[in-house]
């Protein structure tokens, strides 16, 4: 089996040396210390491990690292620019769209791919797009609110 020797993550070319079948999640977390991306279920059913590969949502727990070779991987650590939070990160704080926070990285990554595709999604589009991400604390309404705040379509900020 061929090894993967480098990965483009958050705009940087990083050296690794791993079996191409290793899940991308493990490489990000254990080799590259990018632990913002989480393990939740190992079968792409909860979205905690969501990253973007060339702008597309990938559940990194079931994605062999070989499939990310030569492509641009974006993780939660790549959203903040020069100490300035991404609008979605700001919006999640504003809407208090988290409790324990363990799903938050995956939620924000999924939402960012949505806003990249549709700048002002409807509520139905948000629900449909986000349905693969689980928040066990049940903050869904606040997450929808946060996405609307980031998209500039929120009528109000939840209290």
């Amino acid at each position, binding site marked *: 089996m061929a090894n993967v020797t480098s990965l483009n993550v958050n705009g940087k070319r990083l050296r690794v040396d791993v079996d191409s079948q290793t899940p991308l999640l493990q490489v990000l977390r254990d080799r590259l210390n990018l632990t913002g991306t989480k393990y*939740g279920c190992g079968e792409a059913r909860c979205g905690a491990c969501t990253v973007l590969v060339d702008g597309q949502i990938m559940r990194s727990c079931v994605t062999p690292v070989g499939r990310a070779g030569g492509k641009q991987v974006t993780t939660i650590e790549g959203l903040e620019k020069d100490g300035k939070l991404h609008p979605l990160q700001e919006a999640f704080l504003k809407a208090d769209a988290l409790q324990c926070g363990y799903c*938050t990285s995956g939620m924000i990554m999924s939402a960012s791919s949505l806003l990249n595709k549709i700048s002002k999604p409807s509520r139905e589009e948000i629900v449909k797009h*986000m349905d693969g991400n689980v928040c066990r604390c049940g903050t869904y309404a606040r997450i929808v609110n946060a996405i609307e705040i980031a998209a500039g379509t929120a009528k109000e900020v939840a*209290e």
Partner: protein
Amino acid sequence: MNDDLELERYELFEGPAYQFNFNRRQFLKAFSGGIALIVPMSNLVARTLQQEQGESGSGRGNQRVPDEIGAWIHIDESGMVSVFTGKVELGQNIRTSLAQAVAEELHVPVTTVRLVMADTDLTPFDMGTFGSLTTPRMAPQLRKAAAAARETLISLAAEQWKVERTAVRIVNARFINHDASKSLTLAEVAKGQKLVKTIPADVQVTPVSDWTIAGTSVPKVDGRDFVTGKHQYTTDMKRDGMLYGRVVRPTAMESTLVSSDTKAAEAIPGVVVVRDGDFVGVAAPDQQTAIRAEKAIAIHWKAPGQPGNEELFEYLKKNSTVSSRGGGRPVGSIADGMAAADRKLSQTYTVAYIAHAPLEPRAAVAEWNDGKLTVWTGTQRPFGVRSELAEAFHMPEEKVRVIVPDTGSGYGGKHTGECAIEAARLARASGKPVKLVWTREEEFNWAYFRPAGVIEVSSGVKNDGTVTAWEFHNYNSGASAIQSKYDFPNQNIQFHNSKSPLRQGSYRGLAATANHFAREVHMDELAHLVNMDPVEFRLKNIKDQRLKAALEAAANAFGWSRRKKGCGIACGFEKGSYVATAAEVSVDAKTGRVKIERAVEAFECGAIVNRMHLNNQVEGAVVQAIGGALFENIQFKDGQILNGKFSRYRLPRFSDMPKIEIVLLDRKDLPSAGAGETPIVGLAPAVGNAIFDATGNRLRSLPLTP
């Protein structure tokens, strides 16, 4: 306050309940300088006022440091305020709400207050973060300690300026004299001090009406760390030379190990294999190698035959014994009550086992250094886990340190230390730090569940809606909220222990969901029996004004009197707070699929500390309740969990979300109660009653599947 709370059978305990090990000696060793205010342990475990009134301590001056310390506040010589508490943050936002309480009394910004939480070497003993106790017990005591600290600091500032202490005020972390011509910072006052006090009995705290920091929606104090992915959960930790662990699990519960062949695994470079009794585990330099090693072990288990969920409810009843706890003495006479009734009803209700499924699975990082064991792990009971570790490794508790990073939720599911013990065992064998993260399947199979149960209710009612007799028997699911706030003149309420085929324990609200489900569906059935409106019928049997207020608030916000077909309501009380939930459902005639269209919940827990986080907590409980109400149900047979993964166990998702409206009743005249649990209890019965309203089909089992 429920006096029996700590003894509730279904808060899962393992090991001793009280181990007051952070004592005077340890405190004095840790205390370097500045000013410290101590909350004695007795204040936190005190049942009610009488013990508080009996507190020793005289106002000003140094006092004896109590033998057993419950929490303390430290203002160091740099002016930093630190609060030391054994409580754990799991998303309920107590790191924020406790900081608010302390900041309020000290008159400092929330940002100057740092909470040191759940580290058995640094924080005083705490029994655990459960039972909705942080807000009603820990917060008022920290508030008193902060108020006492403020008064002490004011006296010190007055001494420095040689003025009367009444001439000194503290505003926004600065001490100022009467005409604001002089000021001092916290650091300037605390510098050079070495002052330790126990909170005096006469300390006055800020009345709720004067709150300016508490009672406001302060954002999550470290929210930025979570939205940027920087927060380090246990699962994210890394130590130098750390190995990754895996445990070889039996094929069924209660299995014993017959034979194992570990040679092939041991031959893999870097792999350490441990076999100790029935424990078989591996540690390796990376996860992939650990998985490979685990798979290379040939192993045979012997499993006893065990009941499955098809025979569960019969099994629970057959194996039951009456418990002395939780029911309470009969009131009046059931025979008289039944004789006075116009209509009678007997029904049986059941609830399934369900899983907590915290998104961060159990995890631990264990490290041995010179005979001392340190374990980072996500648990709700750091001191309980320390006891478990000490016992497992036959060592004194002083040699074990448990640290709990803010954790990826628990919901009552993280009371135990099995993952910590496993990681520590692997670390001891390999001589290196070991991280063990349970897989989702392990989390389903080897943790514990919310108890399943059978509840039998017999009642009598007059045609005018007065309930005359109420007999209620709960088998196995638990005694929480088995008593209600209804005014039933004749009642006999019993909890019956049983033998649970699955490992069971604490869950958000414990049995309060099961008992509310049975009671509130039964009340709905009685209302229909006597042709009364379900709200009017309940009000007829309620004298408690707080329950009445919650029910009316939910009914009004919902528009109960103008409702369409498919609506139901429920109300209740538990752990000091009141809840009423109204739901509207639609049921697909062909598939029977239930969609909750709308849920309105009124909630009252005394004075509100942080409206935004309370709203969030109540909404979250309603969403989590959807799972138990409609689809969560552990399937098992012969000691195997048949649906123990997310692809087989349906959790509430975005598309399950109804339109949710929360009505918070702020009772500034009442002490704040906890709010993490009780908001979960009302949805299931409200939805059950709504399904009946929609279809005429009365469902008496959770989950509700028409």
